[in-house]
C-alpha cells in the first residue's frame, strides 16, 4: 500500500529540513557576499537600458579579391563579429548588417569598448607562416637572436593589435602584449600518431628557408629598415604585410613591438582552423593552453609545415601566427604534428589564451573592415522605461502580496518568503554573471523575469493546494505536508521541465536578444526548482510543527473548518480510519 511506503520514504525529505534551510541561506549569503566582494552591486544593463557604443564598419575589398563584398560574405562577417563580441550570447551586444557594405555593432555600456573595437575591427586575415629570421624589433639590424621570454600577460591585452584600423586607437596596452610569450612549445595533443613522412601539400607549401641566404635581398633591406618600436610604424608595417600575397615572404612586427621577423609564405590559412579554445591544463601543469582543431585539409598542411620546421634550428623552427600582418604568437615546433590538432602552451594567462583561441577560431573574416564611425548611444529606451517597468512591477507585486495574504493567510508568508529567496538568488546571480560571462540584462529580460513571478509562484500554489486537499481528506497538517509533496513535486518537475526545454532550445538555436532572454528564462526556471526543493518544502515541514499552523489557526490558511472539512462525517468511514492509523 502506498501509505506506509510513503511513510517510510518521507523521513528522508522530512528529516533535516533545518539543515536544508541553512544550506540555502548559506548559499544566499555567499552570493550576496560575492556580489559585494566583486564590487558589482547591480546587473549589467543591456544597450537598450544603459546605452553604449555603436560602431559602423565599412567593408573593403581585400587585395586580390575584388568581388568579396556580397551578401553571403557580409552575413558571415556579421556572424563572426557577433560571436566575437557576444561569445556566450548573453552580453546583449548587437551586430547587424546595414545596406550592402556596412555592419553596425552596438555594445552595451560597461563593456570594454576598446576591446570590442579591436574584436570587430580586426579583420583577422589569419595565417601561419614559418619564421625565416627574427630579431629585436628596432630599426638597426642586429644578429639573429633566439627569442627572449616575452613580458607576462596582462589582463587587458587583446593580442590582436596591429590591425589596419589600429592607427587611431591609443596604445594603452601595447607595451604589455605579453599575451603571446615567445619560446613556447607546440606539443602534439595526440601523441599516439606516428610521425608520417611529410608529403608535399598544395601550392601553399612554404619553401622554408635554411638561413638568411634564402631571404631575397630586397626583403633583407626591408627587414633592416623595419622599425617596430612605435605604434604607427607597426601599423604601417602590418598594413604592408597584410597587403602582400599569401605566397610571398614578408617582414612583420610582433604585435607588441618586441620582435620583428622575416616570414615565409603562408603555410596554413586561418580558414583551415576549425576550432580553437583556451583550456586550463591541470594534468601536466602547463597552465592555460590553446587547443586547435584543424580541418582535414588544414591538418595536412599543418603536419607538413611542422614536419619541416621541427628539423630546423632556432629561430627557423618557429612558426608565426600572423593576424593582419602582425605576429601575435610565434611558437616553437619540436616535432611534426599530425592528427589534425595541436596545442600551444607556455606562459598564457587566462585572458591571453582566450584571446588567441577566439582569434584562431573566429579569425578568418572573409572581408576587411574599416571603422567608419563610432558614436556613443544613449539608452534607446531611456532609464525611465526601466524605472517605469520597475515601478509597475512593484505595484503588480504588491497586488500579488495582497492577493496571496487574503487567500492563503499564514501560508502566504511561505509563498512570499520563497519569492523573496528566489528574487535574491536571481538578482545576485544575474549581477555576478555580469563580470563573469558578460551577461547583460535588457528590457525584454526584465519583463521576462517579472513574468517568471507567475511560474515561480505557481510551484507554491500547486503545493499549497495539494496540502489543502490532503487536509480536506481529513489529515492533520504534518502528514498532509509530507503526502502532498510527492505529487506536487512531480507536477512541478514536469512543468518546469517544459519551461526549461523551451529555454534550452531557444538558447541553442537563436542569437542576440532572444538568446539573452532564453538564458533568463532558463535561469529563473532552474532557480524555481531550487527554491521549491530547498526552501519551500523544508520551510513547510518546519512550520507544520508549529502549533499555529498544525492546529489550523483561522489565520494560518490551513483551518480545517474553512477548508470545508467535515470531520464527523468522515470519521465514520472505515477506510479513512485505517489510513489514519497507518499514518499515525
Amino acid at each position, binding site marked *: 500500500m502506498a501509505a506506509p511506503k510513503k511513510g517510510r520514504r518521507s523521513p528522508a525529505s522530512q528529516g533535516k529540513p533545518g539543515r536544508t534551510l541553512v544550506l540555502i541561506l548559506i548559499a544566499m549569503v555567499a552570493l550576496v557576499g560575492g556580489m559585494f566582494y566583486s564590487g558589482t552591486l547591480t546587473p549589467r544593463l543591456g544597450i537598450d537600458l544603459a546605452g553604449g557604443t555603436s560602431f559602423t564598419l565599412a567593408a573593403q575589398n581585400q587585395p586580390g579579391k575584388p568581388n568579396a563584398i556580397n551578401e553571403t560574405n557580409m552575413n558571415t562577417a556579421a556572424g563572426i563579429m557577433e560571436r566575437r563580441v557576444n561569445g556566450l550570447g548573453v552580453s546583449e551586444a548587437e551586430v*547587424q548588417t546595414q545596406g550592402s557594405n556596412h555592419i553596425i555593432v552596438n555594445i552595451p555600456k560597461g563593456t570594454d569598448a576598446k576591446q570590442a573595437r579591436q574584436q570587430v575591427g580586426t579583420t583577422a586575415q589569419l595565417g601561419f607562416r614559418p619564421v625565416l629570421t627574427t630579431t629585436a624589433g628596432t630599426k638597426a639590424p642586429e644578429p639573429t637572436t633566439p627569442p627572449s621570454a616575452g613580458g607576462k600577460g596582462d589582463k587587458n591585452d587583446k593580442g590582436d593589435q596591429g590591425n589596419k584600423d589600429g592607427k587611431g586607437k591609443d596604445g594603452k596596452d601595447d607595451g604589455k602584449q605579453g599575451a603571446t610569450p615567445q619560446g613556447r612549445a607546440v606539443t602534439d595533443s595526440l601523441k599516439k600518431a606516428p610521425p608520417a613522412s611529410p608529403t608535399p601539400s598544395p601550392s601553399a607549401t612554404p619553401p622554408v628557408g635554411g638561413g638568411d641566404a634564402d631571404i631575397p635581398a630586397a626583403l633583407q633591406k626591408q627587414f633592416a629598415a623595419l622599425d617596430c618600436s612605435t605604434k604607427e610604424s607597426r601599423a604601417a608595417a602590418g598594413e604592408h604585410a597584410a597587403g602582400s600575397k599569401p605566397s610571398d615572404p614578408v617582414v612583420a612586427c610582433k604585435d607588441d613591438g618586441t620582435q620583428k621577423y622575416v616570414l615565409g609564405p603562408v603555410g596554413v590559412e586561418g580558414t583551415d582552423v576549425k576550432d580553437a579554445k583556451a583550456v586550463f591544463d591541470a594534468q601536466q601543469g602547463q597552465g592555460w593552453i590553446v587547443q586547435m582543431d584543424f580541418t582535414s585539409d588544414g591538418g595536412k598542411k599543418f603536419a607538413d609545415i611542422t614536419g619541416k620546421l621541427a628539423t630546423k634550428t632556432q629561430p627557423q623552427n618557429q612558426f608565426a601566427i600572423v593576424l593582419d600582418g602582425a605576429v601575435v604568437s610565434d611558437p616553437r615546433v619540436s616535432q611534426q604534428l599530425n592528427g589534425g590538432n595541436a596545442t600551444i602552451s607556455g606562459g598564457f594567462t587566462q585572458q591571453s589564451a582566450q584571446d588567441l583561441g577566439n582569434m584562431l577560431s573566429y579569425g578568418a573574416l572573409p572581408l576587411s573592415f574599416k571603422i567608419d564611425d563610432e558614436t556613443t548611444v544613449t539608452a534607446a529606451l531611456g532609464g525611465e522605461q526601466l524605472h517605469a517597468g520597475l*515601478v509597475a512591477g512593484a505595484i503588480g507585486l504588491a497586488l500579488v502580496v495582497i492577493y496571496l495574504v487574503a487567500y492563503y493567510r499564514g501560508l502566504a508568508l511561505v509563498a512570499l518568503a520563497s519569492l523573496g529567496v528566489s528574487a535574491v538568488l536571481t538578482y545576485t546571480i544575474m549581477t555576478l554573471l555580469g563580470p563573469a560571462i558578460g551577461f547583460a540584462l535588457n528590457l525584454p529580460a526584465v519583463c521576462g523575469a517579472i513574468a517568471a513571478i507567475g511560474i515561480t509562484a505557481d510551484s507554491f500554489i500547486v503545493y499549497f493546494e495539494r496540502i489543502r486537499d490532503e487536509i480536506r481528506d481529513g489529515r492533520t497538517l504534518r502528514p498532509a505536508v509530507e503526502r502532498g509533496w510527492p505529487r506536487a513535486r512531480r507536477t512541478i518537475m514536469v512543468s518546469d521541465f517544459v519551461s526549461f526545454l523551451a529555454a534550452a532550445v531557444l538558447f541553442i538555436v537563436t542569437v542576440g536578444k532572444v538568446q539573452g532572454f532564453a538564458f533568463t528564462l532558463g535561469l529563473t526556471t532552474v532557480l524555481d526548482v531550487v527554491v521549491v526543493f530547498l526552501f519551500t518544502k523544508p520551510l513547510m515541514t518546519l512550520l507544520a510543527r508549529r502549533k499555529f499552523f498544525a492546529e489550523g489557526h483561522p489565520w494560518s490558511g490551513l483551518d480545517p473548518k474553512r477548508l470545508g472539512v467535515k470531520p464527523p462525517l468522515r470519521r465514520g468511514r472505515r477506510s479513512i480510519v485505517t489510513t489514519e492509523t497507518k499514518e499515525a
Partner: protein
Amino acid sequence: MSKLGNLGARLYRGEVGYDFIGKRKIWYGISILITITAIVGLAVRGLNMGIEFSGGAVFTTPKTAVSATEAQHKAEAAAGGHQAMVQKLGGGALRIQISGLDTKQAVPVQEELAKDLNVPVKQVNTQLVGPSWGEQIANKAWLGLGIFMVLVVIYLAISFEWRMAIAALIALIHDLTITVGVYALVGFEVTPGTVIGLLTILGYSLYDTVVVFDSLKEAGKDITKQTRFTYSEIANRSINGTLVRSINTTIVALLPVAGLLFVGGGVLGAGMLNDISLALFVGLAAGAYSSIFIATPLVSDLKNSEPQMKALAKRVRAKRAAAAAKGASEEDPQDGVAVGTSGAAEGDDAAVVGPPAQSATRDRGRGRTSGKRR
C-alpha cells in the same frame, strides 16, 4: 476566504463544478471565433513591423520644446517621405524612428532634424538598424519555436500520451494566434521584444497546460477498471479539482504583467514595455484559458474516440440505465451522481438521484480510497 476555501473543498470533492467538457462545443465555438477574428485582423490590418524589421534610423534628441506631432511632420519632411514615428521620452526628449533610412541618408537627416528642433547636432543621437537584423532574430526564433514544438510533443507523448501532446500543441497554437491577432488589431509595433514576449507565452502556455494534464493523468490512471465514470467525467472533475490552482496562478502571473501594461506602459505611452507586456498579458490569459477550456476537452474528445473508452462509456451508460430501471437502489445511482457533469444530477426527486449531501460524501470517500492508493 472561508467561502472560497469551501468552494475549493467542494470543487475538490466534485460537489460543485462547471461542466467544462459538456459545454465544450460552446467554448470551441468561442475560440474558433476569436481565432478567426485574429486571423482576419492579421490578414486585413497586417502587423505593424518595427524598424528592426523594416530597417531605418532611430534619433534621440535632447529636451526640446517641439511637440511630438510637430516633430513627426518635421522628421518626415527631413527624411524625404520616409515614415517617421515619434515618441516622447521623459524630460521633453524625443525618440524619432524613421524607417527605410540607410547609413548615407541618416547623417543629413540628423542635421536637418537638429536644425528643425533647434538642438545641437551633436546631441542628436543616431542609431542605425539594419532591415535584416530583426528578420534574422525572428527567423532564428521561429526555427527555435519549431524545434521546441517537435521536442515538446515528443516529450509529452512519452511522459503523458500522444493525445495530450496534440491537444497541448493545438492549445499552444491557439494562444500564439490570438496574441499575434491582438497585435494586428491593436496596431502595436512588432519589435524583437514582441517576439520575445511571444516566446515567453510559449513556455507559459505549455507550462499551464502540463499542470492541468498532470492531474488529468493522475485521475485517469485506472479508468478502465471502474464503471462509474466516463473519461469525460473524470476529465471534467480533474479540471474542477485544479481550478483553484489555475485561478490563483493566473491571477498571480497576470497581476505584475498588468502592472507593466497598464501602469508602466499606460503612463509612458508607447514603448517597448508596452510591446512586451501586451504580448505577455494576452498570451498568459489565453494560455490559462486554453488549458482549461480547449486542451483538456480536446484530450477528452480524442480519448473518447478510443474503442476502450467507447466501451467504458457504454458500460457506464448501461449501468446507469440498469440502475434507473431498478429504481433508486442505494448504491448505484449515487455512484453516477455528484460528478458535476451529468444533467441527471440536478433535481432532488428524480428517480436516479440520491440525496445530494449524502451522495457527495459517499462518493468522495470512494474516490479517495481508490485514488490515494496509486
